[in-house]
């Protein structure tokens, strides 16, 4: 079998200080090219910490993280497209300039070219006609779509989605989930280098199952992997209601089992 895109093996993270906090203990997972993988866990189980380790923003205390064969954090960072729970749009930039921010920073192309690439994708992101609006004028769902566009435009191999829909209302959320499922690989494929896999962190079990090929379940702090649930999808990627319900139950069972332990 080919080497996975991302390999996390036996990773632990303890935050130092006078009272050390053990955030992650012996976490292992893998993401293959083409996968959409989710991590489900209760609040404070260290999901976001795990993302920071993968993206090379914080060092791991122990264990191995390899992304596309690179273990060095400085080489992993530019291979991750990180999307945060908060949209983190800059209020002084309009939609187009916010979306183009990543390209502008990376200096892969001129500012004009960066805006052009963002412009071309606005319709697919439901943002056509909003290019010169400022974030304060947009709804929460639109803001989150701009943030995702900013991330996807970079065309980095691994997408890290940290509860991107957590702050949205239930309806907008469902709409965006369906849309993400259809969109996440598309845009940048056109531009040549697409994202090859996505890793989503969420505490919404249905969201995880609905979007993913596989779901990892994490325990409360210190975060450990307690289960891995494979979601059997049809060849076209669709999911029947029965499988959805069964997988959901499996994930819930794993979460409950863990909650019952001391």
């Amino acid at each position, binding site marked *: 079998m080919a080497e996975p895109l991302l390999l996390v093996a036996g990773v632990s993270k303890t935050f130092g200080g006078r009272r050390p906090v053990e955030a992650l203990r012996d976490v292992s997972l893998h993401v293959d090219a083409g996968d959409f993988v989710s991590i489900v866990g209760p609040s404070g189980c260290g999901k976001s910490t795990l993302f920071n380790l993968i*993206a090379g923003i914080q060092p791991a205390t122990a264990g191995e993280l390899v992304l596309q064969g690179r273990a060095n954090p400085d080489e992993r*960072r*530019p291979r991750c497209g990180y999307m*945060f729970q908060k949209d983190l749009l*800059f209020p*002084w930039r309009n939609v187009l300039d916010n979306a183009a*921010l990543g390209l502008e920073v*990376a200096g892969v192309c001129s500012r004009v070219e960066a805006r052009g690439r963002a412009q071309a994708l606005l319709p697919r992101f439901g943002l056509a006609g909003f290019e010169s609006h400022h*974030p304060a004028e947009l709804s929460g769902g639109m803001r989150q779509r701009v943030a995702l566009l900013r991330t996807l435009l970079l065309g980095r191999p691994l997408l890290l989605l940290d509860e991107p829909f957590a702050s949205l209302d239930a309806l907008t959320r469902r709409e965006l989930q369906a849309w993400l499922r259809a969109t996440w690989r598309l845009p940048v494929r056109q531009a040549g280098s697409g994202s090859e896999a996505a890793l989503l962190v969420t505490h919404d079990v249905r969201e995880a199952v609905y979007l993913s090929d596989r779901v990892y379940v994490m325990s409360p702090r210190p975060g450990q992997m307690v289960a891995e649930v494979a979601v059997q999808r049809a060849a076209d990627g669709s999911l029947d209601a029965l499988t959805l319900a069964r997988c959901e139950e499996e994930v819930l069972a794993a979460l409950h089992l863990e909650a019952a332990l001391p």
Partner: protein
Amino acid sequence: MSLAARGSGALARLAAWAWLALPPAAVLASLFALWEAYVELSGIDPVTLPAPSRILDAGWASRDALWSNSLVTIKETLVGLAVSVGLGVALALVIDAFAPARRALYPLLVGSQTVPIVVIAPLLVLWFGFELTPKVVVVTLYTFFPITVALVSGLAATDAEALVLMRTLGARRLQMLRLLQIPQALPYLFTGLRIAVTYAMVGAVFAEWSGAREGLGIYVLLMKNSFRTDLVFAAVFLIALLSLLLFALVALAQRLVVRWR
């Protein structure tokens, strides 16, 4: 937006303005009326306390002198403010970038504000002469502190997650400053600037008071010494008016630059 809506928008703005401007104007008008009545009824010597009407007349009669002296003071104020902004921005950037600099400089900055400028100003005249330099130094001493402190807080108030975002995007230190920290600190800079401009002209006037050839400060001193209390008052009102104008200009600039708030 339809024309009608636009018109009613302008009307609403006008109403909002009136709502803001009328109360202080009314209080001021009544104070002046009381003042006028008191001078009229008590028969007090106008050299001791001239009536507002007399101040207005005298000021109008001496408008050429007031204006030419104002120009000098305005120039000193603006140059001093420009130096302050430059100094404040430089200090704030250094303090934000290097934690040791913060610890080393911050106490000194606060200390600099305890220096009694009353005592220093005559010395400055001694060192730098009667021209522009000592005035600029005094204005700068008065105004760089609020600018620096405001900008330091602005730079420090940058969302920690936004900094992480910039890191994941691969931003270098200068890009972080240029694309994130400085734009987000601009509203803070303007807050500091608004405080600074209220001191700035007073600083310039005071510096002139300590020694100058021209300017409203030295004008006030000369008029006082020749018992033209009415012209002293006229100059004082002019200084207040010019300061307000400066404040309004900064507020306007803020609205033009910080459009996203």
